């Protein structure tokens, strides 16, 4: 039976791990290579790096981080943030990333998704959807959550599937950093609209939120940062909790 995945996410800035509250007010909290290794040894099903401010800054540090991490971690490594072109994807894959997540570039030009999934295969193309509720719909934000595009998130999800994305990483901008739980409504609506797996992100504060993301949000994988990063829970604890709730996990 296919297991639901738990993915610790490390937000990386200038080669260091940080985690913001609603993408501002950053705290420095460690070396990404060591963190990734601790997570993979602890049973993380995948590791995710998001180079959060990369759209605006020099981002060469991430290549070095990815290269070092991939020599130590033998679980899948997803890298995103500031990925603009097929060439950026190529560079990250060559450094040892297994999947690349594309956000702003996919919204601005879906051809990047079409082209890269043809060139490298859908298996390594993740489209990151940052969405915020506006009335009774969700709208897509880009540039690390700074720009509202007005694009409907559910329709966009379908378009990304059709363009060749292998997975969708869905983040609720309303919930990110709040620790009140995933936006379940958003997750389940996107999951029922597309046939590719979705990864729920944004808002995890306790282990029940992970359970809800899978059971109610129909996510194939759950991503979280703070609850793991500041030592509130280990990945192992999270897996045992999910297992006790009848969710299939790799233990």
């Amino acid at each position, binding site marked *: 039976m296919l297991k639901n995945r738990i993915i610790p996410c490390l937000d990386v800035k200038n080669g260091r791990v940080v985690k913001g509250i609603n993408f501002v007010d950053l705290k420095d909290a460690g070396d990404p290579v060591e963190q990734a290794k601790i997570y993979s040894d602890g049973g993380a099903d995948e590791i995710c790096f998001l180079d959060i401010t990369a759209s605006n800054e020099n981002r060469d540090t991430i290549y070095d981080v990815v290269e070092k991490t991939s020599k130590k971690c033998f679980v899948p490594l997803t890298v995103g943030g500031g990925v603009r072109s097929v060439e950026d994807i190529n560079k990250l894959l060559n450094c040892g990333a297994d999947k690349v997540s594309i956000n702003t570039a996919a919204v601005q030009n879906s051809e990047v998704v079409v082209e890269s999934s043809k060139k*490298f*295969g859908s298996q390594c193309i993740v489209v990151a959807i940052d969405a915020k509720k506006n009335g009774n719909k969700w709208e897509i934000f880009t540039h690390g959550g700074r720009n509202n595009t007005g694009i409907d998130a559910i329709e966009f999800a379908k378009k990304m599937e059709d363009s060749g994305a292998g997975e969708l990483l869905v983040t609720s901008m309303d919930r990110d950093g709040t620790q009140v739980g995933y936006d379940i409504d958003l997750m389940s609506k996107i999951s029922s609209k597309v046939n590719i797996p979705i990864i729920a992100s944004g808002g995890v504060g306790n282990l029940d939120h992970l359970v809800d993301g899978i059971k109610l949000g129909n996510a*194939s994988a759950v991503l979280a940062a703070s609850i793991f990063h500041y030592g509130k829970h280990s990945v192992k604890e999270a897996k045992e909790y999910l297992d006790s709730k009848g969710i299939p996990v790799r233990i």
Partner: protein
Amino acid sequence: MNVTIVDYNSGNISSVINSFKEVAKDKVNIEITSDLNKIKSSDKVVLPGQGSFKSCIDALNNISGLVDALSEFAMNNKKPLLGICVGLQMFADFGYEETKTKGLGWVPGKVSKIDNQNGKYKLPHIGWNQINIVKESKIFKGIENNSHMYFVHSYEFVPEDKNVVSATTDYSSNIVCSVEKENIFGTQFHPEKSDKTGLKIIDNFISL
């Protein structure tokens, strides 16, 4: 001993390289090349593959003499070869991803899309799934039945002769995830991304 990872522009092979180097340490020389002579003189060959069946076959055919060199290595000289993911799928006669494409024909069978039961199951089949070991395979030495492996694929290899199947995995149907036919080995899952159990499989192959 020389183990060659075939570099034929089939997409991302850095994880395969990293994992083999991790396991090999200084004991075994890991070569990454498409040089025909180096492949022919190698002790073992690893054939990775990402992307579509067609794109991988096209990439193999783009390097003049490569398919013949690999066939000579695996089929005539009967030296150990491990195919990973699309590397395994290419053993088949035909693949049906994008369009019907002729495979290497080393293990009779075809590669077709996983039946997702009208959208009931998500595709690609991504994540950790357990393997049912159905026959003893040299690369499963020390691997427990029901071990977890990392998968990412939408197409499956359907061999004609079920005796070549060494493991299956359960998703929307029972999917062939490992084959062994004499000196030819293949895994649909990614040992290079399957943590310590995956590295053990790589170690088993290197130690053959």
